[in-house]
């Protein structure tokens, strides 16, 4: 073990850590706003990477049809609700159709674009457009009705959603893995360290996204509304903030971040339909560092998880996952000594 090995391991760990950081931020965001422990976060990573892989092959990814199915289901539920509230029928139908415009547009564009094998960047944007709306739809169908349930019930729903999405992933993408082409093939070497263009992109995008999220929460009304909901749901509602809207927005952001992470990590490894789970789980471990509440602590935790994983795989590769997941225990101990047992569980 010499300096160059340490350098390479640190770089590798930090690269993976950057992706975990994004996922940890999404998990913290979703938990803070909706109290949902979002286990399926990793599924969006796999969906993002594999949707792009299928577009690369010129095929129409199954996620598009999932989008259609979920959108139709949500529109039907909304319509039923509105009818029960006694709204006039034409108005109900108009609202339902309006909610289907965006999904229909995405499907049309995908059907048109898939066989044309457009440039990688265009396909990536399309992938984000396909996967991001899945977030709010999942929230609408699985969580919204249970918004006031206990954290435990929401966690159980999350496990169910995770299994459903993984199973659908197998149907859409098949059991074999895919590796996406690199966004930037350049390589830079400094001594033993060699930096690939993809690594640089991962760092840049991660930093850009974190800055963007910071600005969003600090400077925009919607971001502030999300923060208000996170601090106090009832108080936010009394101030005229729609907590359901906040849920939709946070899940949308989570799906977007997930898909983006998938695009980032896709060229660096082979992605399978079930790869997302473990990646998401590591994001979750990182989020635990921040007590599912602090964004900077979660991001630092993510880098730490990445480094731990990288050095763990060097020293004792057979126990790598054991090492990473065992770290939760001292962290939880430390947190409970620090803060006592004062978690708000109404």
């Amino acid at each position, binding site marked *: 073990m010499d300096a160059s*090995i340490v350098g390479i391991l640190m770089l590798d760990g930090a690269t993976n850590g950057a992706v975990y950081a994004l996922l940890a931020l999404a998990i913290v965001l979703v938990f803070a706003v909706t109290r949902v422990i979002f286990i399926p976060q990793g599924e969006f990573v796999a969906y993002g990477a594999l949707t792009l892989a299928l577009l690369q092959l010129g095929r129409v990814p199954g996620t598009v049809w999932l989008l259609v199915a979920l959108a139709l289901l949500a529109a039907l539920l909304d319509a039923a609700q509105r009818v029960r509230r006694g709204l006039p029928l034409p108005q109900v139908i108009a609202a339902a159709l309006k909610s289907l415009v965006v999904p229909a547009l995405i499907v049309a564009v995908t059907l048109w674009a898939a066989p044309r094998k457009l440039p990688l960047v265009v396909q990536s944007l399309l992938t984000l457009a396909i996967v991001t709306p899945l977030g709010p739809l999942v929230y609408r169908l699985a969580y919204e009705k249970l918004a006031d349930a206990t954290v435990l019930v929401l966690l159980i729903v999350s496990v169910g959603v995770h299994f459903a999405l993984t199973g659908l992933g197998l149907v859409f993408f*098949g*059991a074999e*893995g895919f*590796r996406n082409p690199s966004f930037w093939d350049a390589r830079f070497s400094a001594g033993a360290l060699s930096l690939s263009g993809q690594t640089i992109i991962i760092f840049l995008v991660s930093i850009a996204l974190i800055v963007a999220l910071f600005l969003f929460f600090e400077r925009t009304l919607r971001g502030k509304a999300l923060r208000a909901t996170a601090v106090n749901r009832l108080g936010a509602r009394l101030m005229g903030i729609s907590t359901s809207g906040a849920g939709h927005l946070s899940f949308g952001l989570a799906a977007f971040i997930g898909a983006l992470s998938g695009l980032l990590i896709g060229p660096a*490894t082979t992605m399978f339909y079930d790869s997302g789970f*473990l990646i998401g789980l590591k994001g979750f471990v990182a989020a635990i560092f921040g007590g599912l509440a602090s964004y900077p602590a979660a991001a630092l935790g993510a880098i730490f998880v990445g480094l731990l994983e*990288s050095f763990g795989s060097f020293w004792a590769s057979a126990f790598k996952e054991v090492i990473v997941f065992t770290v939760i225990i001292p962290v939880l101990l430390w947190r409970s000594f620090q803060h006592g047992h004062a978690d708000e569980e109404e």
Partner: protein
Amino acid sequence: MKKIRTLMTGAVATVLTAFATTSALADITIGVSISLTGPTSALGIPTKNGIALWPKEIAGEKLNVIMLDDATDPTTAVKNTRKFINEDKVDIIVGSVATPVAAAMSDVAAEGQTVQLMLSPVNLPEGRGAWSFRMPQSTAVMAIPIVEHWKKVGVKTYGFLGYSDAYGEAWLKDITPLAEKAGIKQITVERFARTDTSVTGQALKLMSANPDAVLVVASGSGAAMPHKGLVERGYPKAKIYQTHGAATMDLIRVGGADVEGSFVSSGPAVVADKLPASNASKELGMRYISEFEKANGKGSANQFGAHAYDVVIVLQKAVPIALKKGKPGTKEFRAGLKEAFETMGRTPVSQGVLNWTATDHFGYTPETGVLLKVANGDWQVVQ
């Protein structure tokens, strides 16, 4: 009144005859339990395509196939197996494709005294699996061509980079004594998981140990990531060896230029067209490939479909022997099948040459394995 009675007798008679004919015809019933969903669905789905090629009858007896999904779950597989034995009264059980799942089924099969043709190379402890026979080659047999090649090119040390699961463990257990006997030293053992995002740590460790060859133990497209990881760190491609779990086009599809020039151990079926004419499996393998690709498209043939295909080849030889002992659906027939498997001797199948005995239910002879080299995005047989 009389008319009604005649009608009734007629009806009863028809029902009776119907019963009589089913038992007289006594079709051969095969219960298949494979993983169409869950982590090993990548193996189960091509197996299902191989089963779709099974003929309508074997040795003049009509073939009934009941296929169930075990979702890569041992509990479900055991439930399926019990249903096969108790409700469907099957003559033969086939499956599963996952090692722990097939192992769980073997106890039930032995209890029900029904032969099980496993589609996974399961290692069972002494005294278990008396009714279970393996269709895939043991890892010990598949390690032979790799170690032979190492001897030939003068490899003195090797590193091991394998799945941290049963497949990795089986290879480690089987190649270690084989290499030791050939005087080749194992200098480092590293592990990874299929869904890992990076093997940088392991690759660095291997690089600093600098063995003459690295054996990557993984399956399908999962074998490409560690391979690329090694090449990225500058390990020479021509010194990387892969196991038969990786001998699918998925390795080449995902690995691209990085797997070019590397070696893969394989069963003969997938490369039947490139084998020398003297190979016992050439003709059967060619037949398998042409039938499988006609049904599933060009380039789709793989070892999992071949194992399913071989089930029929084995049965075509064993069923006529067992029929002398009893009719299908009877205990005698099932016992006859077991005896036939154990005594019928050398049986070439598309995936090698089988020779099951009462003590060896793996049965593949050392001539089975073939070493392949990736050249121009295709397989090339190393003579």
